[in-house]
């Protein structure tokens, strides 16, 4: 096995992983902050390092449509997007999952217009969380590289056959260069041999994306429920096998200094990395605080979430997206859902922070922790999420 340590941005890490998986079709429309993925894949193809069809599509709607066609024809298909691009793909996202096509997407999280803003929050992927796609949120360039590889292994599993998006924070991660361990393409392909079913076969003609009446639509949609239900167990196995092969693993979530914690923060992506520094500082100040970072979000491994989190008194869920019109952010809503009808359950504090790329510093997280600890000790009950840092 050969491994190289290369300085890569998370965007480049995603492109390197897609190349290592020997994708057959890349249909990518460039959009900030994902452009480097499109550029690097184009470079790989132009240099002859990747034998793939690079389709310079005219929009993201076409990018996802091209992936649907390619995947139906048995090709390993890849795309990447962000923000408005994902919004424009929205219609086809459902067709990819409904047609059970194992497409993998790299998503550099960026907020949605209006106002137009190219910086990070999770409103793009959160607005697509009901599409039947698996969502993995990474917190480092290495995790992006590894997650794209794991994503193909998961997506093409016979018990899954679902598209997967690997989400990483725009700019904060997409444009940050870090040393990434890059395995040889042979070793990676040895781990994820291609297993894409060829649906479009002239010798066995069939129709895909067919018309359906009320008597069967529900049953087709329920198939997605069952497949998504298989994801947590399968991803855990894929991650374990990946760890045995390459020595790196992540599980379905990350836990940091949660033992004896009075307040456990729950957050996705890079904000969770910043939180570790805040937690270390608060621990030296005598506060018992910890972190739970879900990596797999949708489908949510709710049984495990419940088993782990029910013994804590107070959860501080920090959302990097707004669920407009709701009482809480999307991550908090999912966690609240995990405790549906549960007697032994933690109390919740929910903050929204980091909207439109607003920096969330160590000090910000410490302040949120302090507010949560105060609320916990005084028995204050918050009925809605708190919009941290907004100028009133």
């Amino acid at each position, binding site marked *: 096995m050969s491994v190289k340590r290369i300085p890569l941005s998370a965007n480049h890490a995603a492109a390197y992983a897609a190349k290592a998986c020997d994708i057959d079709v890349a249909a990518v429309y460039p959009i900030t902050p994902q452009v480097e993925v499109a550029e690097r894949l184009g470079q790989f193809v132009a240099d002859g390092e990747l034998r793939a069809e690079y389709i310079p599509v005219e929009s993201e709607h076409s990018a996802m449509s091209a992936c649907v066609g390619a995947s139906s024809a048995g090709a390993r298909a890849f795309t990447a997007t962000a923000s408005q691009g994902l919004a424009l793909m929205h219609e086809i996202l459902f067709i990819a999952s*409904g047609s059970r096509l194992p497409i993998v997407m790299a998503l550099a999280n960026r907020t949605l217009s209006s106002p137009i803003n190219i910086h990070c929050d999770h409103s793009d992927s959160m607005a697509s969380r009901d599409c039947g796609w698996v969502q993995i949120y990474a917190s480092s360039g290495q995790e992006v590289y590894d997650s794209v590889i794991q994503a193909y292994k998961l997506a093409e599993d016979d018990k899954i056959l679902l598209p997967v998006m690997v989400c990483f924070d725009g700019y904060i991660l997409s444009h940050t260069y870090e040393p990434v361990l890059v395995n040889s393409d042979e070793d990676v392909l040895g781990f994820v041999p291609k297993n894409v079913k060829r649906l479009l076969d002239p010798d066995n003609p*069939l*129709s895909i994306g067919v018309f359906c009446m009320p008597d069967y639509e529900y049953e087709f949609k329920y198939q997605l429920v069952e497949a998504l239900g298989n994801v947590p167990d399968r991803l855990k196995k894929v991650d374990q096998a990946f760890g045995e092969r390459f020595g790196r693993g992540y599980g379905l979530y990350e836990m940091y200094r949660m033992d004896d914690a009075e307040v456990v923060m729950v957050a996705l992506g890079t904000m969770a990395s910043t939180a570790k520094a805040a937690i270390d500082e608060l621990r030296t100040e005598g506060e018992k605080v910890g972190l739970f970072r879900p990596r797999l979000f949708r489908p949510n491994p709710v049984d495990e979430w419940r088993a782990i989190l029910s013994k804590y008194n107070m959860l501080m869920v920090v959302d990097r997206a707004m669920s407009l019109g709701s009482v809480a952010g999307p991550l908090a809503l999912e966690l609240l859902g995990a405790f549906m009808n549960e007697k032994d359950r933690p109390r919740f504090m929910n903050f929204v922070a980091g909207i439109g790329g607003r920096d969330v510093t160590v000090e910000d997280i410490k302040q949120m922790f302090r507010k949560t600890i105060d609320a916990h000790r005084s028995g204050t009950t918050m009925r809605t999420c708190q919009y941290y840092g907004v100028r009133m």
Partner: protein
Amino acid sequence: MSELKSYKEIPIGSKNVEAGSSVRNETGSWRDFKPVVDMDKCIKCLMCFISCPDATINPTTFGVNYAHCKGCGICAQMCPVGAVTMVEEVV
């Protein structure tokens, strides 16, 4: 009507594994006007055959398959010699 199947008994992923199943699904009853071809005027240019969005014109006999013709009238519009007339269906 056949027995409705469970989610486990149908193909995965909204596909129809039986090719050409629309042959069985007759749609002629949707029609309120039907195309009638005047073979004395017909010059056998095949414009009606090419233009039909279904496949109801027989390219050899120029007969219309009324089990599938929905009466859209495109053949009558396209015919360069006016050989196709749309005639109201009388039940």
